[in-house]
């Protein structure tokens, strides 16, 4: 970088806030196009059945209805929702048709789209459509899926869609030689990202230019443009995906859903702009669910608590179809079962099961939250069995700094080898204990105070980030002397307009005010990969550093000519360029025309952030209520761009994790009906639930893999929450012998465990 950095590391207030706080954000529902029509979706009310017919005659006769699209309108073959990440051919038979065709497989599956003058008329018309479905038995759990009495995809012959293996060393031999083994079955309930802004699109087809514009892009606009081009038979450059303000993703928003195809399709079909914004009930049954898993896992250790091996099997309930990133959670749940710990022998298998429920996808910390619950519970159970202090056991087994890079288990298929890069797990654990006040709080372990039992626990985690292959940035010196940064990353509410401005300002050596950041839309750069896998800051930020270097090199001869000096005599500062004698030329005087440079940051190695999280809970045995009295976390991210936005993500991530641990659950009945279809049934954390959350973010071990030294950090602290809280509850209720093996730890579930434990 050309100047000592002043912006990176500063808790700058966000530029986004100025519009968002004044109600001037522009979210997709705020976009309107002249002459636009409105869409509404008819969704299956039956979980599993043969779709015999859709009669839309009455709906079509309603004043203001322009069209009712069903499977037959989409052409043959029916376009399918493709797999974006790890597109294994074995998974293709499980891809979702854009509209249900012949069969419906979950409640909420789109069957028809009504296009009308207003959304109210479109919704009125839904009631006039007659759908004929012959019900089939619904598969709603693992036993039914495995029994295969009913198959979602009979031609496949099984409800198991895929099997992944994570292997390292020789687990069976290690188990044979071990002093101690314990095998348990754990379950994590189905829940979801549930971002606050409902999904939506406005699509417009320009017949003359043969161009499609789609507002409402998020997360992975470039990948979705590719999918849309392929499914609509267009070239990529015929499509502009436009991102406005985006109300949260957490992995779920921005993935390609059937609606991502159907709204643009309808717009072209009718030759008029079409708008659709989902309602919350629709969201709860249509957007990706996540997390549901059953894990039968065994741990092997020496008598004095050195973990030797893990082996076992995971079954993820992937719902009715494999969607764009549906394979990530099952594969991650195997590879990341060892987490931050030094475990030499691993053999884990993950199966993904198809069931008659909403399809699943990634949710912040996918396939990381779940195995952390399993592993941290097994460590505490082992410590208890062996009469050891669980804290000592963690210290004993964490990957030490001098063992890095430390390889994780190798995954197949879609072989993936990865290593923990650089970090000091022990230092982070110690810092976490100090921040938390462990020594005082641990004295309360298992005590009953005013009718509530107290428990404390700590756990350690890793967070992978910086998925490749690359990110592009283009920086333009405008003729007014300002710099416009164009980026392939996407904004999902994490504040990248600000942090990318900080990175660009430092890389160019100019004040923050002189930089404007443009991102998200496909028109800005040639290629982009967006925001997932905690990658935006590392990948997009590094691309900015490279583009800034390239731009300054491009400006160097221009400046040398203006100053009449040698190339190597040119020095850039905040205002422009100067020579050794102090003669200066300002940026706005360097060139009459804009000067632009583009760069691509390529990366094949993941970054890993390391951290610990400690929790203090109090459990009311009469109600089963778990109160979280205090949480403190530490995390090393290598390099912090903006401490305020980073800590904000950490605290928010912890509270999301507490929602998934204590409150949130999608409940289905035996017929595959979703019983938690409103926010009054699906409980999210509110302001009164978890008042005491503290996070500490540190810069201990910069990443060796990028010019910023930064590590992905947007998912982070959600990962350990389930395991740590469950262990704290077990400590609190140790006198009753309660050992949680399932989430959520909701009042009825905790109360039930207590009833079963009390003789």
């Amino acid at each position, binding site marked *: 970088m050309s100047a000592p950095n002043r912006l990176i590391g500063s808790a700058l207030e966000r530029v986004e806030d100025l519009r968002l706080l004044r109600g001037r954000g522009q979210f997709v529902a705020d976009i309107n196009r002249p002459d636009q029509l409105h869409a509404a979706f008819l969704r299956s009310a039956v979980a599993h059945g043969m779709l015999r017919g859709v009669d839309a005659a009455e709906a079509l006769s309603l004043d203001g209805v322009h069209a009712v699209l069903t499977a037959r309108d989409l052409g043959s073959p029916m376009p399918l929702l493709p797999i974006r990440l790890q597109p294994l051919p074995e998974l293709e038979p499980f891809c979702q048709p854009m509209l249900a065709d012949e069969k419906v497989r979950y409640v909420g599956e789109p069957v028809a789209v009504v296009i009308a003058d207003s959304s109210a008329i479109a919704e009125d018309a839904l009631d006039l459509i007659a759908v004929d479905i012959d019900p089939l038995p619904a598969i709603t759990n693992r036993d039914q899926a495995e029994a295969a009495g009913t198959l979602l995809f009979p031609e496949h012959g099984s409800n198991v869609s895929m099997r992944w293996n994570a292997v390292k060393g020789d687990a069976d031999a290690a188990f044979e030689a071990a002093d101690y083994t314990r095998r348990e079955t754990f379950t994590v309930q189905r829940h979801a990202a549930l971002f606050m*802004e409902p999904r939506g699109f406005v699509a417009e087809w320009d017949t003359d230019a043969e161009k499609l514009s789609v507002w409402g892009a998020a997360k992975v606009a470039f990948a979705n443009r590719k999918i849309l081009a392929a499914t609509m038979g267009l070239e990529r450059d015929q499509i502009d995906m436009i991102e406005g303000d985006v109300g949260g993703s957490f992995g779920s928003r921005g993935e390609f859903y059937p609606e991502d195809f159907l709204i643009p399709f309808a717009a072209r079909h009718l030759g008029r702009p079409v708008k659709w914004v989902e309602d919350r009930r629709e969201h709860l049954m249509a957007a990706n669910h996540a997390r549901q898993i059953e894990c039968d896992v065994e741990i092997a250790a020496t008598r004095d608590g050195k973990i030797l091996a893990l082996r076992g099997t995971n079954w993820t309930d992937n719902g009715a179809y494999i969607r764009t990133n549906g394979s990530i959670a099952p594969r991650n749940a195997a590879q990341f079962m060892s987490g931050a710990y030094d475990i030499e022998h691993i053999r884990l298998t993950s199966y993904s099961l198809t069931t008659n429920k909403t399809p699943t996808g990634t949710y912040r910390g996918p396939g990381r939250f779940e195995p952390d619950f399993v592993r941290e519970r097994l460590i505490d159970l082992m410590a208890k069995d062996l009469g050891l202090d669980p804290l000592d056991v963690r210290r004993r087994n964490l990957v030490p700094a001098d063992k890095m890079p430390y390889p994780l288990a190798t995954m197949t298929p879609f072989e993936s080898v990865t290593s923990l890069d650089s970090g000091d797990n022990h230092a982070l654990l110690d810092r976490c204990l100090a921040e938390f006040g462990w020594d005082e709080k641990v004295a309360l372990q298992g005590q009953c105070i005013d009718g509530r039992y107290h428990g404390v626990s700590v756990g350690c985690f890793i967070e992978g980030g910086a998925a490749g292959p690359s990110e592009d940035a283009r920086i333009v010196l405008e003729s007014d002397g300002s710099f416009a940064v164009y980026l392939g990353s996407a904004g999902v509410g994490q504040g990248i307009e600000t942090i990318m401005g900080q990175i660009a300002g430092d890389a160019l050596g100019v004040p923050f005010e002189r930089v404007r950041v443009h991102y998200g839309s496909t028109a800005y750069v040639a290629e982009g990969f967006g925001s997932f896998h905690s990658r935006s800051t590392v990948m997009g930020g590094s691309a900015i550093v490279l583009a800034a270097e390239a731009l300054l090199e491009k400006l160097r001869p221009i400046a040398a000519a203006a100053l009449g000096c040698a190339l190597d005599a040119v020095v850039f500062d905040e205002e422009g360029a100067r020579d050794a004698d102090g003669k200066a030329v300002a940026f706005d005087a360097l060139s009459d025309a804009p000067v632009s440079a583009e760069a691509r940051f390529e990366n094949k190695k993941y970054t890993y952030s390391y951290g610990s999280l400690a929790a203090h809970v109090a459990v009311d045995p009469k109600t089963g209520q778990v109160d979280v009295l205090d949480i403190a976390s530490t995390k090393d991210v290598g390099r912090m761009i903006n401490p305020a936005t980073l800590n904000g993500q950490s*605290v*928010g991530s912890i509270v999301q994790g507490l929602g998934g641990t204590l409150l949130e659950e999608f409940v289905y009945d035996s017929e595959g009906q979703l019983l938690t279809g409103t926010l009054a049934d699906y409980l999210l954390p509110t*302001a009164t639930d978890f008042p005491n959350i503290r996070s500490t973010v540190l810069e201990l071990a910069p990443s060796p893999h990028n010019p910023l030294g930064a590590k992905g950090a947007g998912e982070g602290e959600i990962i350990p929450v389930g395991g740590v809280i469950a262990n704290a509850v077990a400590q609190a209720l140790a006198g009753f012998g309660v050992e949680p093996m399932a989430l959520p730890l909701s009042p009825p579930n905790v109360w039930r465990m207590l009833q079963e434990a009390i003789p």
Partner: protein
Amino acid sequence: MKAAFEVNGESVEVDVEPRLSLADCLRDVLGLTGTHLGCEHGVCGACTVIVDGQAVRSCLTLAVQADGERITTVEGLSPEAGLSPLQAAFRKHHALQCGFCTPGMVTTAHALLSEEPDADADRVREVLSGNICRCTGYVPIVEAVLEARAAYRKMEGES
């Protein structure tokens, strides 16, 4: 059906279907898109507006029910330029990430502090518990509202 009311200090008259919600009326008829719809069933609070001093869910209110009322939206709480003290406190404490729930948080907090400028942390949490935020974990929102109390005490002293 006709309804006449005041929005952010301006008189408006609308002629709308009886079933149109106040939120849809504000957004689609009057162009005030700062009011957001997060659930449309009265749980998330993103659509909160102030009706005669009270924080109200505009998704559960019909536009025609607003007849004769004085309504304030997030736009009406925003100065011509820059931020109000409450908004500035939100920014300072990083009390928003995606910003979608934020207008409802600002209107709810404004209604609270206008009535109770001395509200303590528990009271602030209690009142904000009707508004869902998925990004921040609420900790910085509560800090922001507590800090903004000073500005409301000052306003109360001046009035």
